């Protein structure tokens, strides 16, 4: 039994590479936008239910419930002084990437280019750029939103004829080189060594409304006793009617 080159190229390599090649078939690799198994673009609003008093409002000083905080982190949190942050121009310390998805915000997600997904928030007016492909960090000073490298994780099909069936998959994002800031508005810190891994999944609820589920892992050897793993969810909105850009605030 022999396989022609054409047969292998057309029928075997694409399937094998779909499983084995982390960035898809090397030849003629489509852009991240073209390869997207799901569409995250549009306007989204967070739904704040769990840990409401830590997320919806500024928690009381010394409230670090559910955060696996270390003693070093506790000392910093207990010394939280928003007036000092304001004086130093650091009102955005609680709006960095490790905290941003937990905040009471809306998201506006667009493709900045074929390999960069842009995630804007109205809360604090922040912008996350999720870079696909072989993106290289430009270097320089760390930023509130850090460097985010993204990749699609394609889901398997459910039978032959998959080309005609809907595509499924998740978005994986790894963020590093974040400027030190706060996990919560009340000064619970994260360090410059924090590493954040996220999985974004998109589902349609029974009414056909999109829901994003974000699963977030935070590793911070300085201020977290163990990996902190949390989830958040966002509901799709039809337009920008409720988009309300609000600058960073150190207190509220």
């Amino acid at each position: 039994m022999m396989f022609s080159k054409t047969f292998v190229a057309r029928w075997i390599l694409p399937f094998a590479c779909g499983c084995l090649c982390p960035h898809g078939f090397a030849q003629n690799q489509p852009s991240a936008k073209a390869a997207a198994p799901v569409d995250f673009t549009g306007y989204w609003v967070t739904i704040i239910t769990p840990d409401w008093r830590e997320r919806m409002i500024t928690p009381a000083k010394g409230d670090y419930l559910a955060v696996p905080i270390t003693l070093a982190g506790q000392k910093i949190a207990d010394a939280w002084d928003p007036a000092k942050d304001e004086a130093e121009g650091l009102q955005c310390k609680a709006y960095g990437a490790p905290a941003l998805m937990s905040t009471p915000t809306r998201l506006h997600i667009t493709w900045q280019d074929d390999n960069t997904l842009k995630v804007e928030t109205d809360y604090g007016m922040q912008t996350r750029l999720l870079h696909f492909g072989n993106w290289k960090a430009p270097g320089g000073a760390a930023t509130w939103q850090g460097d985010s490298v993204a990749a699609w994780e394609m889901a398997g099909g459910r039978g032959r004829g998959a080309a005609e069936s809907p595509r499924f998959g998740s978005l994986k994002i790894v963020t590093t080189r974040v400027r030190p800031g706060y996990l919560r508005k009340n000064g619970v810190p994260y360090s410059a060594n924090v590493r954040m891994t996220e999985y974004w999944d998109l589902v349609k609820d029974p009414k056909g409304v999109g829901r994003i589920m974000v699963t977030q892992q935070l590793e911070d050897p300085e201020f977290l006793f163990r990996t902190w793993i949390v989830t958040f969810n966002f509901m799709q909105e039809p337009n920008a009617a409720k988009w309300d850009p609000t600058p960073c605030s150190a207190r509220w």
Partner: protein
Amino acid sequence: MIKRVYSLRGGALLLGLLLISSPVFAQVDLSGLWGFLRGQYGQENGGGSDIADFTGIPINAEGRAVGLSYSAGSLSEPERQCQYYSPRYASTGPFALNIWSDTDQVTGKIISWNMGAWIDKDIVTVWMDGRPHPSANAFHGYGGFATGSWEGDTLVIKTTHMKWSYLRINGLQHSDMATMTQYLVRHGDLLSMLTYFEDPVYLSEPFVLTSVWQLNPKANSLRTSPACEPIDESDRLENTSIVPHYLPGKNPYANDYAKYYNLPIEAAQGGAETMYPEFRKKLKDQYHYVPPDKCIRYCCDTQDPSVKCIRDGSNRVR
């Protein structure tokens, strides 16, 4: 010209790789012991939600009234002692998820996924064989009736026929007309779930939650629930005419949560608007909310032994 061909050995190798590693025609294996992660639902999973903390839950007026009528003493009633929590509680409860499948021995197909029980939570069987949900008038069990289907690598579970039960441990309830859709996604050793819960009786909007578990072979878990035998725990309840509850407007603890956190009662007692970001502006502009100076209860639950903090409602550092 000589046509280049790939050998049988090379082709077989590729096909072999395809067969052993491809998810294309397989289902995701969800089976295992999944430990609940204590990174969210802080107080709810620790000391338990305060009485009348309904923040961020889309209850309607009836839901709020029922929640405020709740007395924890009702759990001592013999007829309530063996009452299970709702399948909804899997998404916020501190339970591990013990998941396994049942397989048709002839076809090899998965007939059902099962989510194990706990001492106060029934097993949930998720039928994968395409059977329809029964009539609305059929029996409602503590595990409800659940069917599943795959959307990509996401298991979508639709649950109906649940018994009336608690929506939150502090007395909020859902009716037996509630329905639930859950989306389960596995990412390596993490299992994430989005729960979409609807109740035409006590909710004005869907109650949507997300949760995450981590694979943990040592997680404390059961497959079935042990038998439960009710006993008289309180002399007061020997008089069976007493039904622990609070009449409307008479719950002495109704304002406690709001006082603890300087919140207006309208925020503490929940409703759909408290889920959305614009509620912050209302708190600031209309209620002039100011946070308490410092945390005095349920401040911390870190496992770092060097951290001393207030871990419960006692106001004591330990």
